[in-house]
C-alpha cells in the first residue's frame, strides 16, 4: 500500500468521524462547538514549529515565526474563549 493511499484512508475516515461526532448537537451548543473546533485547527502551530525549526533563510524564518504567533493566538485564545463560554453553562445539568 503506497503512502498516499494510507494518507487518503486517514483523510476519508477522519471526515466520517467529523460528521459523526457533531451530528446531534442542540443549537444551544453551536457557538461553543464552533469556537472549540476553531481552537482545534490552531494545531497548525504544530506545523508552524516544524517549519520554523528547520528554517535557515531569513525569509523562511520570518514567515514561520509569524505563522507561530498567529497559530498560537488561534489555539490558546480559542480554547480560553470556549472555556469562558462554557463556564456559563456550569451547574445547569441540561436536559438536552
Amino acid at each position, binding site marked *: 500500500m503506497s503512502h498516499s493511499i494510507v494518507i487518503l484512508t486517514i483523510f476519508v475516515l*477522519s471526515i466520517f468521524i467529523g460528521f459523526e461526532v457533531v451530528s446531534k448537537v*442542540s443549537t444551544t451548543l453551536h457557538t461553543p462547538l464552533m469556537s472549540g473546533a476553531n481552537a482545534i485547527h490552531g494545531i497548525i502551530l504544530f*506545523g508552524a514549529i516544524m517549519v520554523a525549526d528547520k528554517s535557515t533563510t531569513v525569509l523562511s*524564518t520570518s514567515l514561520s515565526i*509569524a505563522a507561530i504567533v498567529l497559530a498560537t493566538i488561534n489555539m490558546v485564545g480559542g*480554547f480560553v474563549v470556549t472555556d469562558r463560554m462554557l463556564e456559563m453553562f456550569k451547574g445547569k*445539568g441540561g436536559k438536552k
Partner: protein
Amino acid sequence: MNNNLYALIGLAVAVSFIMALKGLSAPKTARRGNLIGAAGATLATIVVFFDPAQKVHHNTFLILGAIAFGVIVGVPAARRIQMTQMPQLVALFNGVGGGAAALVSIVEYLSLSNNSARDTASTIATVFTVVVGSVSFSGSVITFLKLQEIMTTRPVVFPGGRFVIAATLVGVLGTGVWVVNSGGNTPLAIMGVLSLLFGVLFVLPVGGADVPIVISLLNAFTGLTVAAGGYVLDSTLLIVAGTLVGASGTILTRLMAAAMGRSLFGTLFGAFTAKPQAATEAGEARPVKSGSPDDVAILLNYAQRVVIVPGFGLAVAQAQHTVRELADLLTAKGIDVAYGIHPVAGRMPGHMNVLLAEANVPYEQLVEMEEINPTFPQTDVVLVVGANDVVNPAAKTTPGCPIYGMPILDVGLAGNVIFLKRSMRPGFAGIENDLLYEPKTTLLFGDAKDSLTKVVSALKNL
C-alpha cells in the same frame, strides 16, 4: 525521541481532539471536552520539539519567544472580550489560523524549491492551503470588521461586482495552475495576493444575519487548509485534526443554514440577486404605537402567559440579568414565563443561550423555535427584547427580501406584542418590519437594559 513513540503521541493528540468535539456536543461534558482538546494541543506543542526527523534545531529561542508573544496577545483578548463581541473574536481567531496555515505551506514550498524535491501532489496541496488559508484570513477580517460595526453590516454590492469576483476567482485558479506547472515563487506570491482579494470580495456582499454562517463556513475552510498543510508537511496529526474541523464545521454550517431556511448557496450568493430593502417603499412615516414603561408593566401584569424573545439588542445592552429579574418577578406573580429562542438570534447560533446561561436563567425556560411557535396563540404578551429579523413576517410574506424563507418566531399570533427597541432603525438585515405597525404592537424605545429596569420598577409599584 523514538519514531514510533513520536507517532503514538500524535495519535493520542488526535484522539483527544475527537473526544473534545464529542464532549462539546453535550452540555454536561462540553467543558471537559474543551479542556481535553486544550491538553492535547499543549502536548502536541511540546512534543513537536522532539521530532525525530529533525536532527538540527534552528531558531528554538525565536520559536519560544513567538509562542510566548502569541499567548500574551491571545489570552487577554479571550479573557477581556465582552460576551457580545464573542462572534467577531471567534472570526478573528479563525482568520489568523487560516493565515498561519497559508504561511506554513509557503515556507515549506520555499524550502523545497531550494532542493527541487517537490512532487506535484504536494504542490497542489500547497496551492490549496495558500488559496483557502488566504481567503479564510481576509474573509474573517472583513467579517470581524462587519460584526464590530467598523464597516457597514449591510451587503456591499458594487456595479459589476459579480464579474470582478468571477474574474478574481479565475485569476486565482489560473495562477494556481501556473504554480503547479512552473513552480516559481512569483506565481505563488501573485496567487496569494489574489486569494486575499477574493476573500474580501467573497464576504463583502454577505449581509446581516448571514454573517454567522460565513464564520462557520470559513472555520470549516481553515480546518481543510490545516489538513492540506498536514499533507504538505507529511504530518498525520495535522491531517486528522484539520479534517475533523473541516467535516464538523461543514455539518455545523449546514445546521445553521437549515435553521435559517436557506441553502448555503443562497446564503453566499443571495446578495447578488436580492433586491436590497424590498420592503422599504411602504415604510414611510406610518404610525406606530409607543408606550411608556408603565403601559408595558400593566400589560405584563395582567397576562397569564408571557414569552420573552431576546435578540442582539439584549446582548448589546448587556440586559440578560435585568431580563431575568423581570422574568422572576413575573413568575412570582404566577405568570407563566418562557423564553423563545430563535436558533440564529444574536450574531451566532446559540448566542442567546450563552448570554441567558450567564444570567442563570433556568434551562427549562429556554424554549426552541419549533416548540414555542405553536404556543403563541395561547400567549397573552410577547416581549421582544432587541430582536427584529427573527420575528419579521417579511420572511414569510415578501419573496425577494434578504431573509425570505427564514423560519421566524410567529410572535404576531400572540395577543399583544411589545418591542423594546433602540430606534425605528431596521434590524441587522436592513429590512422593515411590518409587525411594528400592527395595532396589537406596543413599542418602548430606548436601551434594552434601561427600558427593562424601568419596567421592573414600574411592575414592583403595581
